[in-house]
């Protein structure tokens, strides 16, 4: 069990990180030049890490699946980034941000990691402002804040509805500068397709050149995975089309343990599904819940009439509307955390009060806000989101309420890492959404950007030295070594096999089927029967895929169908592990809701005695079931309570 040592530094919570930094090992400048680091991914975590490590003097190779690092899906984050600056004088502090994050995660995150995250949050804002990120400002020229779910203070910094874009472009600019100074070598339109170990340590990757189709080998002293989450297992999600779980999955198959795979976040405010041909779901920022009020009709007959197109939402009188979040959670109202808001929407729709043509939608209404603040103010705050909505749905949200429904958005689970952000494979690190560490069972809004940049700018650049300090005498590895040879051959065999199935159905045909199995059984409400069914059905579907998929063209050129097929082959296995983890966790916590475990009021019911641990899954081969190990979550500083957003 030594492998699962989280290596948390001793001492009081507030001093752990300072103590760590004072005592960690460092690498001197001459040695840094001799050490290579591979960073896979160029989102907030990957780009900030690559730029920072390059500036420090390491030789960095940064891989990007798109044509440019600026396209990574962090770009799509809308609402904001949290930090404990307390610029608003509303009682915020590092401790309070730490506490809210732990509580928001339903007490399933590691205390020391989360405290460190809250601690460095302030440096992130400083860094971004110095890079020229145009955050929103007050008339006096100082930074503005807005509120977000799960907090009673205003600690979210934002750049209109494009905060992720501006932060990513900030990190991209730092990365571009490092590339110009030859501190970082960029490999764009490459996809990592395997991890290479030498003597048990991560020493390189195989990446597929997405233009030529060639498999290429890259060696390094350490490998950093920053490839985001695996939410696209569900087919429909708010993820980008190329966002995928494969890089993390290759690491898992090479021995890295996977932490809490079942912890997936379903975001409450997305544009509802509208047809079979749909390719993705669009998020409407959580910031909309600052001013928008969520409701469904109080009467079932009104809801039915709306679904049939006989009534419009504006026809429903005020007294006939059920503002169910305000009713159920008076203290937090429309700003309850995401998991709570999503479940409440599902509950109303399942009970027959849903709207839209499918009945799977609720209203997000700005009429009150427009009356209170004026249309101009609402437009200044949310104009781009309203425009986005109107282009998709063809309704004007200034005149009629928006329709929203929950959708898969984020995965709290990921590669298990210790306090150094190192996985169970020495030399393999995971940062940002790709690791499991900071959000427990539910991530609060505006915390993903915070964690990605915290890991990349302010945590990994320190902790990776602790590992690399012991590696200064290791010369660079040749990619002709048998380990690389074998990895490449195995991959070529796999690609050859896929190309030669020449079956009847496209990759998307299978992926959509997988998505339905996942959404129906492993979505917002899970129970043992459905989870077992999902595991079996996925096994059958996987078999069918491997015997009946059709991939046109050849593997030695740009082939987007082959790219999708390679990722889908992993999604089947990821989907099964998500279900297996959800089945094991006989409690409800955060985004993981087991129907068998709820309070009388329908809230999540945790079982702290039995499940205060991180479930860490170890791969045991294609045919064998994975083995679960536990990392106990012993809370030293916080007392666990049932989450209460009511009073």
């Amino acid at each position, binding site marked *: 069990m030594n492998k699962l040592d989280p290596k948390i530094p001793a001492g009081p919570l507030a001093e752990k990180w300072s103590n760590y930094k004072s005592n960690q090992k460092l690498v001197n400048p001459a040695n840094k030049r001799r050490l290579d680091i591979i960073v896979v991914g160029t989102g907030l975590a990957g780009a900030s890490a690559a730029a920072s490590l390059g500036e420090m003097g390491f030789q960095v190779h940064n891989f990007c699946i798109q044509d440019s690092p600026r396209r990574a899906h962090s770009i799509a984050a809308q609402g904001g980034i949290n930090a404990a600056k307390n610029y608003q004088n509303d009682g915020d502090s590092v401790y309070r941000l730490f506490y809210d994050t732990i509580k928001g995660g339903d007490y399933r995150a590691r205390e020391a990691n989360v405290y460190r995250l809250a601690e460095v949050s302030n440096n992130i804002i400083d860094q971004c402002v110095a890079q*020229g990120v145009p955050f929103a400002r007050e008339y006096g020229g*100082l930074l503005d804040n807005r509120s977000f779910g799960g907090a009673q203070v205003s600690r979210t910094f934002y750049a209109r509805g494009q905060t992720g874009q501006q932060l990513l472009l900030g990190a991209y600019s730092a990365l571009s500068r490092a590339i110009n100074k030859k501190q970082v070598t960029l490999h764009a339109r490459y996809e990592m397709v395997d991890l290479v170990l030498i003597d048990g340590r991560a020493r390189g990757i195989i990446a597929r050149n997405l233009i030529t189709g060639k498999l290429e080998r890259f060696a390094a002293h350490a490998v950093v995975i920053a490839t985001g989450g695996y939410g696209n297992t569900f087919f429909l999600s708010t993820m980008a089309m190329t966002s995928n779980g494969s890089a993390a999955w290759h690491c898992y198959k090479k021995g890295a343990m996977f932490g809490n795979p079942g912890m997936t976040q379903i975001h409450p405010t997305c544009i509802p599904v509208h047809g079979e041909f749909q*390719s993705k779901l669009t998020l409407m920022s959580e910031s909309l819940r600052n001013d928008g009020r969520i409701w469904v009709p109080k009467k079932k007959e009104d809801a039915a009439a709306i679904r049939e197109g006989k009534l419009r939402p504006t026809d429903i009188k005020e007294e006939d509307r059920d503002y169910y979040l305000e009713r159920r959670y008076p203290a937090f109202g429309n700003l309850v955390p995401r998991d709570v808001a999503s479940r409440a929407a599902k509950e109303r729709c399942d009970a027959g009060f849903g709207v839209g043509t499918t009945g799977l939608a609720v209203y997000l209404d700005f009429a009150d806000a427009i009356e209170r603040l004026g249309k101009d103010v609402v437009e200044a705050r949310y104009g781009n989101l309203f425009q*986005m909505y109107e282009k998709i749905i063809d309704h004007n949200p200034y005149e009629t309420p928006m329709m929203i429904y929950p959708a898969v958005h984020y995965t709290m689970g990921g590669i298990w890492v210790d306090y150094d952000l190192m996985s169970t494979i020495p030399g393999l690190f995971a940062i940002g959404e790709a690791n499991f560490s900071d959000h427990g069972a539910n991530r609060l809004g505006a915390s993903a950007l915070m964690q990605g940049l915290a890991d990349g700018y302010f945590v990994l650049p320190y902790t990776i030295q602790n590992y690399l300090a012991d590696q200064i005498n290791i010369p660079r590895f040749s990619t002709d070594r048998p380990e690389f040879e074998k990895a490449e051959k195995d991959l070529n065999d796999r690609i050859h096999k896929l190309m030669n199935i020449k079956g009847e159905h496209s990759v998307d045909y299978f992926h959509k089927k997988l998505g339905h199995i996942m959404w129906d059984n492993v979505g917002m409400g899970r129970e043992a029967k459905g989870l077992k069914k999902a595991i079996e059905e996925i096994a059958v579907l996987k078999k069918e895929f491997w015997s009946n998929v059709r991939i046109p063209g050849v593997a030695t050129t740009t082939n987007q*169908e082959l790219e999708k097929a390679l990722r889908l082959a992993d999604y089947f296995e990821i989907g099964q592990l998500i279900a297996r983890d959800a089945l094991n966790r006989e409690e409800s916590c955060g985004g993981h809701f087991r129907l068998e475990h709820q309070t009388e009021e329908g809230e999540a019911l945790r079982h702290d005695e039995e499940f205060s641990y991180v479930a860490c899954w170890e791969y045991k081969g294609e045919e064998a079931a994975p083995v679960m190990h536990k990392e106990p979550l012993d809370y030293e500083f916080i007392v666990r309570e049932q989450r209460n957003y009511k009073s």
Partner: protein
Amino acid sequence: MDIDINIKVKVWRQKGPKEKGRFETYGLKNISQGSSFLEMMDILNEQLINEGKEPVVFDHDCREGICGICSLYIDGYPHGPDEDITTCQLHMRKFNEGDTITVEPWRSAGFPIIKDLMVDRTSFDKIIQAGGYVSVNTGGAPDANSIPIPRHDAEAAMDSAACIGCGACVAACKNGSAMLFVAAKVTQLALLPQGRAEAKKRAKSMVAKMDELGFGNCTNTGACEVECPKNIAITDIARLNYEFLNAKIRD
């Protein structure tokens, strides 16, 4: 009200950078007007795969108008016949029963074709690498509120920072000029105190890189501004010229 329509799509097919390209026309039945343009392309590809043909290669990722990877010249317009959007936000309700829709890649010397509708835009990254940043290392930044920035300046910087680097400006320009793209970054950083220190150097080095990479000159036709999905204003080009000339005069 959205209905289902039957359409034809005339698509540019090209096997590789050096190969000769041609148009192919495909018929599509019962396309919902509620679907997005790229979902229509998905349906086309599904149809091609089922017929045993090679699907059309095109760049697409976030599908919500922010990553800037989608391109496509649709019926003669970059990002198609709708205002203020990218191709992925274009919906089929902009088209009618019986339409033939022409789909081409970005065409510009600065963006060579890779395959079908996919083009190489790494030249944009190279321009940013030449100076589109504030030279600040990680760590050691002063408190974020230590320099107040007038709200008006921050908002104006944000207007320019909204550029998604899609390249529609270049595709729309008869000269294949990248001036609007360069101007947006130069303007954003010139308006902020953090970016002032390097403003002159930045304008010179980014313009030099742009010229080196084969982009054309600006003749103020304004096509870029009209086609920009993020409404980057041509007045940014005026600011770029101001910064550039100012720098050159001092040389």
